[in-house]
């Protein structure tokens, strides 16, 4: 459903209600209950030991680092940290779940209520509540295709630590949901607790979606959408689901509580199982694991070591660099990008906004074009800063700087080298520019006459001619001043 359709839905008097369950894989070296490595991409079943395979007699031992990471997340969203949390077994049968139960947390999760401030596209800030976040182990992976009629199981992922972050049903559109998800994504990477890699499934979410009549207090019946592993899919799947539910309701039907799977190839959701078919997970406290008891000293130590968080950094950017809130939010979306910006800004301390424009503009566009992360940039912050310094000191015009940038991006050279080699240095000699203007005036008597008789628009014509004649190198301010003087009757 397009945004236009979305707004039509809203006009039709429907309100969308969305809650997200985000699964973030924790960036521990080893699994949550075994010593197996967690690295992605190994040969199937080479990173699963007897504990991960659920062999008879083996027992889980909790990875302390996973606990620290979950607590860091809780502290970062201002949530209550449980002094005592309990692991519980979620019982169901599936071949990629070796023990026949998933070790999770149920009644007593490690992180309680918290909240996130999420900036929307229109610049407004929305507060989204986090109900809880709990630790659990990931399951393995099933492959049903490509194995000649049988299914294959890869248990490398089994036992990888996850934190499941459950939001309140606070979001009212797919765009809000995506903005919230991006915020969580930013946060877990700032905290270095998750690599955020969505292609590898390190960060994924399920969405609970319902619609209700605008003004209604009661929530509508919800569907849970599974398998949302990109921001784009989240938005598309939610919009698709909202339209599906509205269509049902408007034709007099009833939405059924069920789990639906999003198919990105067909851009549709289809039913996996209804409420009646849902598993009774028979949760109970895992008797193989002791309750996790945390003391104040442990929590305080983690709190004192938290990095500067996105909101704090954005606030500092506004204050320190005088940036608009929007720029600050964008530049702090990742810690690496923010660091890059600060390094660029250091080269042009008086023109931090210019640095912001370039980092958000040409630089980000170049990264996007080449599909690169800022950490893999072809250009260092010092190089970009060097170019901006030449704009600031009038060596090169802003327009020609773009050309310089292209060359630098392509071959890794320094700004000064490119400006020199290509002769792009600005002409700031009034005599030289004046001479050019004189020649143009002499060659265009009709235009001069028209201008002098009141056709002000022709001023642009003369600017263009002068720029053309100087290969765009004339200092624009100087050119303007000289032209005005010389064209004056």
């Amino acid at each position, binding site marked *: 459903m397009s945004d236009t359709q979305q707004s039509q839905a809203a006009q039709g008097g429907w309100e969308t209600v969305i809650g997200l369950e985000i699964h973030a894989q924790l960036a521990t070296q080893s699994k949550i209950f075994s010593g197996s490595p967690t690295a992605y991409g190994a040969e199937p079943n080479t990173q699963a030991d007897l504990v991960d395979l659920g062999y*008879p007699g083996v027992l889980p031992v909790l990875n302390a680092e996973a606990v620290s990471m979950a607590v860091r997340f809780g502290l970062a969203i201002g949530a209550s940290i449980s002094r005592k949390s309990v692991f519980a077994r979620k019982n169901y049968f599936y071949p990629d779940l070796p023990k026949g139960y998933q070790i999770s947390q149920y009644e007593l999760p490690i992180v309680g209520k918290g909240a996130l401030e999420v900036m929307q596209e229109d610049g407004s800030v929305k507060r989204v509540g986090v109900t809880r976040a709990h630790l659990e182990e990931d399951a393995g992976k099933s492959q049903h295709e490509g194995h000649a009629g049988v299914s294959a199981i890869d248990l490398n992922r089994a036992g990888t630590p996850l934190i499941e972050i459950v939001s309140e049903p606070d979001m009212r559109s797919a765009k809000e949901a995506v903005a919230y998800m991006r915020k969580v994504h930013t946060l877990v990477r700032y905290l270095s607790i998750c690599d955020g890699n969505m292609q590898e499934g390190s960060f994924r979410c399920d969405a609970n979606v319902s619609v209700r009549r605008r003004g209604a207090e009661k929530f509508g019946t919800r569907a849970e959408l599974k398998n949302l592993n990109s921001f784009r899919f989240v938005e598309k799947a939610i919009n698709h689901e909202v339209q599906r539910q509205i269509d049902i309701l408007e034709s007099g039907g009833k939405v059924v509580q069920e789990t639906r799977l999003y198919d990105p190839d067909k851009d549709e959701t289809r039913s996996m199982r209804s409420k009646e078919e849902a598993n009774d997970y028979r949760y109970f406290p895992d008797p193989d694991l002791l309750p996790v008891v945390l003391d104040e000293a442990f929590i305080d130590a983690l709190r004192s070591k938290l990095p500067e968080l996105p909101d704090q950094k954005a606030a500092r950017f506004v204050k320190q660099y005088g940036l608009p809130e929007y720029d600050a939010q964008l530049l702090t979306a990742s810690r690496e990008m923010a660091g890059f910006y600060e390094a660029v800004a250091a080269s042009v301390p008086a023109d931090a906004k210019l640095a912001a424009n370039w980092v958000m503009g040409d630089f980000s566009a170049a990264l996007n074009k080449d599909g690169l992360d800022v950490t893999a940039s072809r250009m260092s912050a010092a190089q970009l800063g060097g170019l901006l310094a030449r704009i600031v000191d009038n060596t090169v015009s802003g327009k020609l700087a773009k050309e310089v940038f292209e060359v630098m991006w392509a071959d890794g050279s320094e700004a000064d080298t490119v400006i020199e080699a290509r002769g792009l240095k600005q002409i700031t000699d009034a005599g030289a520019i004046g001479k050019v203007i004189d020649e143009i005036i002499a060659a265009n008597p009709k235009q001069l006459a028209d201008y002098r008789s009141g056709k002000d628009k022709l001023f642009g014509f003369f600017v263009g001619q002068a720029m053309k004649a100087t290969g765009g190198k004339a200092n624009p301010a100087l050119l303007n001043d000289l032209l005005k003087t010389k064209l004056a009757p």
Partner: protein
Amino acid sequence: MARTLAELAAGLAARKYSAVELTRDALARTERAQPQLNALISITAEWALAAAAVADQRLAGGQAGPLTGIPMIHKDIFCTEGVLTTCGSRMLSNFVSPYDATVVTKLKQAGMVMLGKANMDEFAMGSSNETSFYGPVKNPWDPTRVPGGSSGGSAAAVAARLAPLATATDTGGSIRQPAALCGVTGFKPTYGRVSRYGMIAFASSLDQAGVITVSAEDAALTLQAMAGFDPRDSTSVDVPVPDYRATLNAPLAGMKIGIVKEFFGAGLQPEIEKLVREALAALTRMGVVVKEVSLPSLPLSVPTYYVVAPAECSSNLARFDGVRFGHRCENPKDLRDLYTRSRAEGFGDEVKRRIMTGTYVLSAGYYDAYHLKAQKVRALITDEFRSAFQDVDLLLSPTSPTTAFGLGDQTSDPITMYLNDIYTIGANLAGLPALSMPCGFAGELPVGVQLIGPHFGEARLLNAAHQYQQATDWHLKTPASFAEGFA
């Protein structure tokens, strides 16, 4: 004639015989007894002789400990690397473990020689050893009767003097009840004292590894090697292991022993009550002071246990799904068929009964009424034990309400079968150490007396039992048709 493990160790140290000789003898006795008793599921003769040869080298090199070269048997619930580990079930009838349980590793390191794996009730669920896929074990005192369970093979093997030690596990009485029915000493340590790693789980919060031996002294010797914190078992407890043998001979004068009123009620065979009271009298002659105590919630221990244990087992046994190991049905037509048929074929009736009971009590809508309530009663029982131990050092009771019953007598009535554990379950629910030792005979059949101690009160328990065994010789009696000693 070496009658105990301690005496055997002394003989080895004095070079009266070699470990290989002892092992050959033990293997011969074991092979001979197997058709009569069915006490073992696997006999690992080759492994045993190789281990014995290594033990002899250690003995010759002066690197031997008190257990080096002593033949023993592991209950088939302990994973043994490279050796069939069945847990008494068809489900694991093809399972060769790729690793050793911590208990197995520790006794290996101590130089013990494993003769084989003891028969047991399937997945340790039973009180008569009749639920084993490998057939029932017979009681050496009367082969028409059961040895008790679930560690029936372990108890029968020690009673028949195949080996001086068999490991065992106790979830609701599975060490103590068969020890009582077979006339041997059975010791269950405090929950967490011995690692559960590699011990196939039945009910994780109740399961505890222990030993079946001839004497309390032998139990002390082996517990010394088995006990201790294991980083691979989060529920094992990191408290120092005392020298159990050092306090065996402490005088009992002034020790306070409590008699639990609730343990001498209806259903107890009168001859058993008489023998248990005689044992108490023998202890009082050593200066023990007797006090009557009450544990009013204790009668609820059986129903509580039969909620908690099946609940945990229903989850613990989910991993036996035919996918990665164990029994898999032939030609499954789809995933559901693979699960249902593999499990239907692989598990016996008693295991299925408990899985179903456990699944039910954990189900939505029933959890609070059953599982949650059972946890509350469990906490209550634990508290009552704790306050009892404010007043007394140990508690004394019968181990089992009856002597060994006939094979097949109780198999049609699970509830009667469950009541066999009425005196033993309390210690599991509260995680307390407890032992059973022989205290006489009702007719031809041995009777056991149970001692229960406070958490980590192993030394005191073994001390009292050892002193009793110094003054009596019930523990040294052997069935007529079996050897009187080990060498």
